[in-house]
């Protein structure tokens, strides 16, 4: 089957955050933070290997991280890390069927029990904790 004939929404549809509430936003952020953290992790492994070049090599690497740009990148990484962790635990519990409600005869207007306030709170908590961690990280980095 030709992809065009399938009328798939594509990446644009997948990452569109406007139509399906905070759960879809969390799905997108989870993906982006996962990719971002993998990129950072690869970079981190590569950069820390500069210690093999001795004290001079290590000092050059540290200089790179102690710029405004370096601090900004680290703050974003901290935010991604906290969001990915907290939301990841929420998703993992959900995947096991924890906190997704109980089956019941549906009544109009058919509000889905799986999209409940517990999970919404989990998502908002992940976002808030990520923001707090970013601010704390910036305070530590600039406080010294």
């Amino acid at each position, binding site marked *: 089957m030709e992809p065009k004939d399938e009328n798939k929404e594509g990446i644009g549809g997948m990452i569109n955050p406007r139509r399906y509430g905070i759960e879809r936003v969390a799905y997108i952020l989870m993906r982006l933070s996962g990719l971002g953290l993998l990129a950072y*992790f690869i970079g981190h*492994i*590569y950069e820390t*290997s500069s*210690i093999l070049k001795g004290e001079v090599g290590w*000092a050059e690497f540290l200089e790179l991280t102690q710029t405004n740009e370096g601090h900004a990148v680290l703050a974003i990484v901290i935010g991604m*890390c906290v969001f990915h962790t907290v939301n990841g635990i929420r998703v993992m519990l959900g995947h096991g069927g924890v906190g997704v409600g109980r089956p019941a005869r549906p009544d109009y207007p058919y509000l889905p029990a799986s999209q409940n306030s517990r999970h919404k709170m989990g998502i908002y908590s992940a976002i808030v904790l990520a923001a707090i961690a970013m601010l704390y990280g910036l305070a*530590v980095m600039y406080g010294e």
Partner: protein
Amino acid sequence: MVNKMRESVIMKIHYGTALAAVALVAVHILMRLTQSFAESLEYENVIANYQFLPYAGMLEIILILLSIHGFNGLRVILLELKQGRAYEKAVSYGCIAGMIGLIAYGSRTIFMVNMGMV
């Protein structure tokens, strides 16, 4: 190998590595806060960290856990983006190669510094 593994086994590994990594990365980050942040990153302190065997062992475990989790996550995203037998095989083996490469590269740093080869 990854093509023969059931997806449920792969995903259980994905969840397991995530949970274990959360605990160990927390220790790794807290170690930066035992002293002042800048002090903890000084050359002598970092070398001392690497040469403390339990810490070096923990770094190695974190390296393995995050490499498995990260590259499996990438595999999942790539499998969902495009389909096809050759493409999916390339993604699976490419991610395994990336994972092994990253573990090998990181392990080299950990072992060499731990053994005082700097």
